[in-house]
């Protein structure tokens, strides 16, 4: 017997058409593999979709593929991830569950004494017991684990699987992996397999009391950094597990997505012109046709602004040469000349004022209202406005114009002024 474990598909994440296509292809290919390999069931512990209600295009192809898996008699067991979660069952996950294509495995009971107990669901064909908890943003699901009635779960006999969505600090392999991690000790012990989601790289480890804690990783890309990892050789796919009354093997099945090229430029102690030249030279050396191109520029320029590093020319050049998409990362590029001096203050407001006041002298504009004390005030107003989050129930296409119009009003310019 065997089951498949995939997670963090993040359907609907990609904005670029060619990447959307890959996102879909990879997803469909994995489920086709599940059908052709005749798995007994599929586990998806969260972040199947990038948002709780993705656009119709995504829903259409997802439903079609899930129907195919359903028709093949393969049940799919899921928990919500931090991206597709909805506290009021207002997620496409719920829709899929409602029509019977997938099954949410969390069957909780909240007791008067605060304890939470979970009931195991039993896969009808294999008799495997399955349960789990969804993942919430900023580790809010930790409370569930702390209140979990672990004894009853640990006492369950037979082959049992726990689905969870969250980073496990014990499994970190890279200290750069920050964010909400929870210790493994929060999970109940004694399960045969822990199907994890949230971490985007394949990871399989066993610990005392916790055998087979597994993250398959994202099959393509759910964060921008994933593409860069892919370009640097990160393998993507899903996990195939063979079992009888115990887990017999856990294998990573690679699913290829696309080809990549990486252009990296170290800008440390250099001028913008020389960085631009190196970018051009390196662009000439590669064949970008049908590839995802990752351009990474990092370091501290000796003179000039970071904006002097001209990435638009490179982008155009690569696009013209037939690249699928060009991803340019400049967020680690600094400039000695225009570095931000930090400033102190007793509170947030004071710190902001002091940082602006400390740095505004570096700017050279003809418009006097952008400089001096006036400039500081303006910058603070802009910062405040741009820091506004999206309102509850506000759509993105309402949110963006709202913030844009407010910002333009603060600057005292019209939308049409630039044209």
């Amino acid at each position: 017997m065997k089951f498949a474990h995939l997670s963090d598909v993040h359907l609907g994440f990609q904005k670029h058409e060619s990447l959307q296509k890959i996102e879909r292809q990879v997803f469909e290919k994995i489920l086709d593999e599940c059908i052709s390999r005749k798995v007994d069931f599929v586990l998806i512990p969260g972040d199947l979709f990038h948002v709780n209600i993705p656009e119709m295009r995504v829903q259409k192809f997802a439903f079609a593929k899930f129907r195919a898996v359903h028709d093949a008699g393969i049940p799919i067991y899921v928990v919500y991830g931090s991206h597709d979660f909805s506290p009021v069952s207002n997620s496409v996950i719920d829709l899929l569950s409602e029509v019977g294509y997938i099954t949410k495995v969390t069957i909780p009971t909240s007791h008067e004494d605060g304890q939470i107990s979970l009931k195991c669901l039993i896969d009808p064909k294999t008799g495997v017991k399955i349960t789990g908890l969804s993942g919430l943003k900023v580790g809010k699901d930790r409370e569930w684990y702390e209140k979990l009635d672990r004894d009853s779960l640990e006492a369950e006999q037979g082959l049992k699987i726990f689905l969870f969505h969250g980073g496990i600090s014990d499994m970190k392999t890279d200290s750069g992996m920050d964010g909400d991690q929870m210790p493994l000790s929060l999970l109940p012990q004694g399960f045969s397999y822990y199907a994890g989601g949230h971490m985007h790289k394949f990871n399989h480890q066993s610990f005392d009391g916790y055998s087979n804690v597994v993250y398959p990783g994202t099959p393509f890309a759910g964060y921008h950094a994933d593409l860069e990892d892919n370009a640097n050789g990160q393998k993507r796919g899903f996990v195939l597990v063979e079992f009888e009354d115990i887990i017999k093997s856990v294998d990573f099945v690679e699913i290829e997505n696309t080809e990549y090229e990486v252009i990296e430029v170290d800008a440390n102690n250099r001028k913008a012109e020389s960085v631009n030249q190196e970018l051009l030279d390196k662009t000439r050396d590669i064949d970008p046709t049908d590839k995802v191109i990752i351009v990474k520029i990092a370091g501290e320029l000796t003179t000039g602004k970071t904006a002097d590093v001209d990435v638009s020319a490179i982008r155009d050049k690569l696009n013209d040469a037939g690249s699928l998409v060009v991803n340019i990362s400049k967020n680690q590029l600094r400039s000695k000349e225009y570095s931000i001096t930090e400033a102190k203050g007793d509170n947030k407001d004071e710190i902001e004022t002091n940082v602006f006041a400390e740095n505004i002298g570096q700017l050279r504009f003809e418009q006097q209202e952008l400089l001096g004390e006036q400039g500081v005030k303006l910058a603070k107003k802009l910062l405040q406005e741009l820091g506004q989050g999206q309102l509850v129930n506000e759509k993105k296409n309402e949110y963006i114009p709202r913030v844009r119009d407010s910002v333009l009003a603060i600057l005292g310019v019209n939308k049409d002024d630039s044209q």
Partner: protein
Amino acid sequence: MNEISVVGQVVGGSFGDIVIRQKAGTDLEIGDLMVSEENGSFLILQVFSLEFGSQIQDKMQQMMSGVNLEQGVVDAHFYEPDFVNYVLARIKPLARVYKENNEVKIPKSMPSFFNKLRLITKDDLEFLQKEKDSVFVGYIRSGSKVIKEAEVWLPAEDVFSHHMLIPATTGRGKSNLVKTILWSVLDTNKVGALVLDAHDEYFGRVGIGLKLHPRAKDNLMYYTPSSPPVGANRLTINLQSIRPEHFEGIVDFSDPQFQAIRMAYRQSRKNWIRDLMLTDAVDAGMESSTQARGEFAAATMMVVQRKLRLLLSLEKDEEGVVFSRHEVFDSTTKGLTTVDDIVKDIEAGKVVVLDTSRLGDEAELLVGNIIAAKLLQKYKDAKASGELQRKPVATIVIEEAPRVIGVDVLTSRNDNIYSTIAKEGRKFKVGLTAITQLSSVIPKTILANMNTKIILGNEMKQEREAIIASASQDLSEDDKNIASLDKGEAIVTSIFVPFAMPIKIPLFEDIVKEKGVTPDNSKTKVF
């Protein structure tokens, strides 16, 4: 002054050793704090010695006793005994408090002759205001009387960066004090602490502990190697985190052995310990006793392997995977980020408790060494980039401190990170909180650098002398006082307090009872 509250009157003596006559019916104790009201200020004085005084000559008293004892005269008594016989107390001035602004200064004058003294009250101690980001250590104690309204708070950043010493013998309340201190450290994120908990007693794995602090969820991290309780972290350190210099001053390697270690590190880098442990010294052609081509004698290599095996409890399985029996060290992919994670937590002002109870002495110090070295380096870097001010002060709590800062360790081996921190950590906001039974074996230079000492009871004269000699205030008359400190009683001497403060440390259990969290029994919605 209310006549009823008078306990004595100044009758003689000299500066630092003033003699008062105790009022009949009062019962002065060693360590009692009293107040002499002066013009616009008052002096706080402390009893350091008590003796009898009498207007009748000694020989006469002895004869009277003979009559009383030998002739069975039962109704013999002194005529007006309260006038004739009395107690004389020797007291020393601790501080002068100016009433106008509550300013506290070191006294430079005597109380007025014949001035009447009273016992200290909470109103006299109003200058003990809790300042922002301070650490609670206990209540002012006058003799054995505790003034609960007078809480003693120490400025956290100052006391921790200038190192703290907690000298005491067993059973005098060391761990209760450490828990009390850490409890208030947990209140804010202004102090980050690494606690090497050799007895696994601070977190409260079973029973009461720091885990019951209301902010424990955010501010307390507990690492333990074996079956971590729910929510706790597994203490696993990957062997890749260990570098040769981490053994310096901790493990007794000979020069050739250290060279072999460094060579192994140069050759294998990250996996040097694993590779070194898997090297068969003889097969690797190291039979020769000479060190040709940078190779080492098989014997040296084997000694190094044996020492590492014992130190880190290493074994290898049939597949050649090196692992440690107590699971703290790992040669595969576990624990790769533990050191970084712990350092980050300390930098974020959290208290990190490491349960090192399953580790041997040297392994415990090694774990602390790896983390402390990284922490100090990060704080040094922060200083270089001008960011140190924003970081919380960091302290490393270490028991039986002479293991790393004792005279014999520092003279026989190279400096280790703990002694480096003791000497220069202050500049980088990294300090030691050293707990010891044996202060006398810590070099004077280091003892003098420990600018806050919370002295608990100690019956060993040699130890008391070492503490008194390095105290921030003059404790030369306090030898008996320190010897007679009961469990939970202490004297705080520090450059950050105006005088050596006698305190009573509350029972940690009482603090938890009063301020600890109660279990959350509210119903929780699960989606």
